[in-house]
C-alpha cells in the first residue's frame, strides 16, 4: 500500500499547484491556446486517474475505458441537442443544458453501462478481460456511429457549453478550466481515500490473490464490479467535461486508440499511484506538442518510447520521482 512520504506529497501538491497557476501565466504570455490544451489534458487526466483505480489497484486491464468517456460525453451532447432543438427526447422531456443535471446523468449512464460490461467480462479474467472490454467498447463505438439522428460517424456539434444553475459561466475558457481542475482534485482526493479504505484493501487483495480472498469469505466479483462501475462513472464525468471543452461529441472519443492512450497515460505516469496518471497525461500531451513541432509523425517516436518504458521504466514517472517502484 502506498505510504505517503514527503516527496510524494510534494509531487502531488506540486503538479496541482502548477495546474492551478497555468491559466493566468498562459494568458499573461498571450498564449490562450495553452489553456485550451491544458484543459483537454485535465479531462483526460481525470479519466486516466479513474482507470488507475481498476487497472492499477485491481489489475483489471480495461482496454475499453474510452467507452465510458464517450458515453458521458454523448449524454451531455444529446441532452444539449434536444434542449437547443426543442425536440422531445424521452417521454416528452426535451433534454437539458443544465450541468447540474446533465453531468450526474452522464455518470449514471456510464455507470450503468459499466455494470453491464463488468457483469459479463468480470466472469473471466486476464487476457479475456482485455479483449472483451475492447470488443464491447468497439460495439458502443458502432452504436453511436449508427445514431444518424445524433450525427453518426461525424459526431454532434454543441452550440454552447452547459449552463450551471442557469448561468453561462462555463462560456469562459478559464472558468471551465478551473471547474475541470476542481473535479480532478475532488476525484483524486476521493480515490486516494477509497484505495486506503476497507474497500480498497479488498480490491488490492483480489489483485494479489483472488483465490485466497475467496477462502477468507469474500466474493471478489462483487467488489471488482463495484470498483469497475465506480471507475466507469468517474470516466463518464470526464466525458461530460470533454463534451463541454470541445463543444463537440464524436465516436472518436470512444475509439480503441483513445482507450489505448488512457492506458498509456496510466503506465507512463505510474501504475497504482493515482497521482501518476496526471503526470502521464501531462507528459503525453507535452510530448505531442513538442514533437509535432518537428514532425507530423510524432507517434513514430511515441511508439518506441512506450516500448522502452514498458521494458525498463516500470514504476512510471511518479514511481521514478518518488524513488518507489510499484507492481
Amino acid at each position, binding site marked *: 500500500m502506498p505510504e505517503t512520504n514527503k516527496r510524494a506529497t510534494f509531487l502531488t501538491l506540486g503538479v496541482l499547484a502548477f495546474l492551478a497557476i497555468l491559466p493566468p501565466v498562459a494568458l499573461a504570455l498571450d498564449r490562450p491556446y495553452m489553456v485550451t490544451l491544458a484543459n483537454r489534458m485535465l479531462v483526460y487526466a481525470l479519466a486516466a486517474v479513474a482507470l488507475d483505480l481498476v*487497472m492499477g489497484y485491481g*489489475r483489471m*486491464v480495461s*482496454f475499453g475505458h474510452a467507452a465510458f468517456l464517450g458515453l458521458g460525453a454523448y449524454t451531455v451532447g444529446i441532452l444539449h441537442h434536444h434542449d437547443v432543438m426543442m425536440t422531445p427526447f424521452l417521454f416528452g422531456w426535451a433534454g437539458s443544458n443544465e450541468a447540474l443535471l446533465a453531468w450526474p446523468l452522464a455518470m449514471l449512464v456510464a455507470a450503468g453501462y459499466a455494470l453491464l460490461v463488468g457483469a*459479463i*467480462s468480470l*466472469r*473471466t479474467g*486476464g*487476457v*479475456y478481460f*482485455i*479483449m*472483451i472490454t*475492447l*470488443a*464491447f467498447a*468497439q*460495439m458502443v463505438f*458502432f*452504436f453511436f*456511429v*449508427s445514431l*444518424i439522428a445524433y450525427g*453518426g460517424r461525424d459526431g454532434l456539434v454543441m452550440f454552447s457549453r452547459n449552463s450551471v444553475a442557469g448561468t453561462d459561466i462555463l462560456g469562459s475558457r478559464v472558468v471551465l478550466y478551473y471547474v475541470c481542475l476542481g473535479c480532478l482534485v475532488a476525484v483524486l482526493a476521493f480515490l486516494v481515500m477509497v484505495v486506503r479504505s476497507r474497500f480498497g484493501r479488498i480490491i488490492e487483495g483480489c489483485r494479489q490473490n483472488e483465490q485466497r480472498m475467496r477462502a477468507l469469505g469474500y466474493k471478489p466479483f462483487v467488489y471488482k464490479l463495484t470498483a469497475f462501475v465506480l471507475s466507469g462513472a468517474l470516466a463518464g464525468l470526464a466525458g461530460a467535461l470533454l463534451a463541454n471543452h470541445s463543444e463537440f461529441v464524436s465516436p472518436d472519443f470512444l475509439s*480503441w486508440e483513445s482507450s*489505448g492512450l488512457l*492506458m*498509456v497515460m496510466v*503506465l507512463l505516469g505510474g*501504475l497504482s499511484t493515482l497521482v501518476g496518471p496526471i503526470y502521464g497525461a501531462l507528459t503525453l500531451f507535452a510530448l505531442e506538442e513538442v514533437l509535432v513541432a518537428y514532425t507530423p*509523425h*510524432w*507517434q*513514430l517516436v*511515441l*511508439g*518506441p*518510447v*512506450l*516500448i522502452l*518504458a*514498458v*521494458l525498463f521504466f516500470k514504476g512510471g514517472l511518479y514511481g521514478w520521482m518518488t524513488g518507489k517502484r510499484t*507492481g
Partner: protein
Amino acid sequence: MLFFIEQLLNGFQLGVTLLLMASGLTLIFGIMHLINLAHGSLFMIGAFVGATVMAYTGSFLLALAGGVAASGLVGMALEYTVLRRLYYREHLDQVLATFGMILFFNELVQIVWGRRPLGVDTPSWLSFTVEILPGVAYPAHRLAVIAVGLLVIVGLFFLIMRTRVGMWIRAGASIREMIGALGVNINLLYTLVFGLGACLAGLAGVMASPLMSVQAGMGENILILTFVVIVIGGIGSLRGAVVGAVLVGVADTLGRVYFPALFRLWADPATADAAGASLASMTIYLVMAVVLAVRPQGLFRAHA
C-alpha cells in the same frame, strides 16, 4: 436463394482472412502466453510489401512471397528484440508494448509509402468469374482466397498434430522446462512459432489487399475482429478459431446485407442503411456477449 449463397461465400471469404489472423494469434497466445496487438501491424506490413512487389513485378505470386517473407522477418525481429522479454510479464505490459508497436508501424508505413492508400490489382489470371452454381458467377480471386486459406489451415493442423515440430510446440505449451530438457532450443522454437504466426498474418494481408485499401491503420480493424473470433472460439484453441472465424465472417456479411433490408420496412433508406450497417457491426459483438454469457471461456478449450 442464389443471392443468399453468394453472400454466404462472401462471408466465408472474410472468415478465411480472419482465420489466418486468428490462428497465428491464438497459437502465439496458447504457447507463449503473449497477447500481441501488433499482429494487425504484421497484416498491414504484408499488404504493403505485397502491394509494392506487385507494382514493380506485376506478379501476384512474387507479391505473396514478398509479403509473407516481410511479415515473417519483421515478426521474428520483434520477437527477438522485444517480445521475448515480455513472455513472463503481465498482460498489461504486453498490451502496452505492442500498442507502442502499432503506433510505430502505422507512422512508419505512412513515411515509407505515403498517406494515400495503395490499390492492388487482382492478378489478371484470377480476373474471371466462376459459375459455381447455375446463375451464380463468383469472382475467381475470392474463391482463391477461400481455397488458399483452407489449405493453409489444414496444413497448420497437420503440422501441429502430426509432426515432430508440432509435438514440441504442443509440449512447449504445457511444460517449458521439460521441452528444454529434451534438448530442444526453446528460444529458437518460440521465435519460429512467432515467425509462423507472422507469416500467416502477412499471407492474410497480401491476399486481402486487392479487396481493401492498403493503408496505415488497416490492421487494427481486422485485429479487433480477430479478437472477437478468438474470444468466441476460446483463446489458444485452433478449432475454436475456425468456428469463431466462420461465425464472425458470415454473421458480419449477412448482417450487412439483411439488416438494412429489415430496417427499410420502417425507415428511409439512408437511416435504414446506417442503422442496419451499424447493427451489423454490432451483431458480432452481441454474438460474443451471448457466447460469453453461456461459456465464459469461449466455445473450445485450448489445445482441443
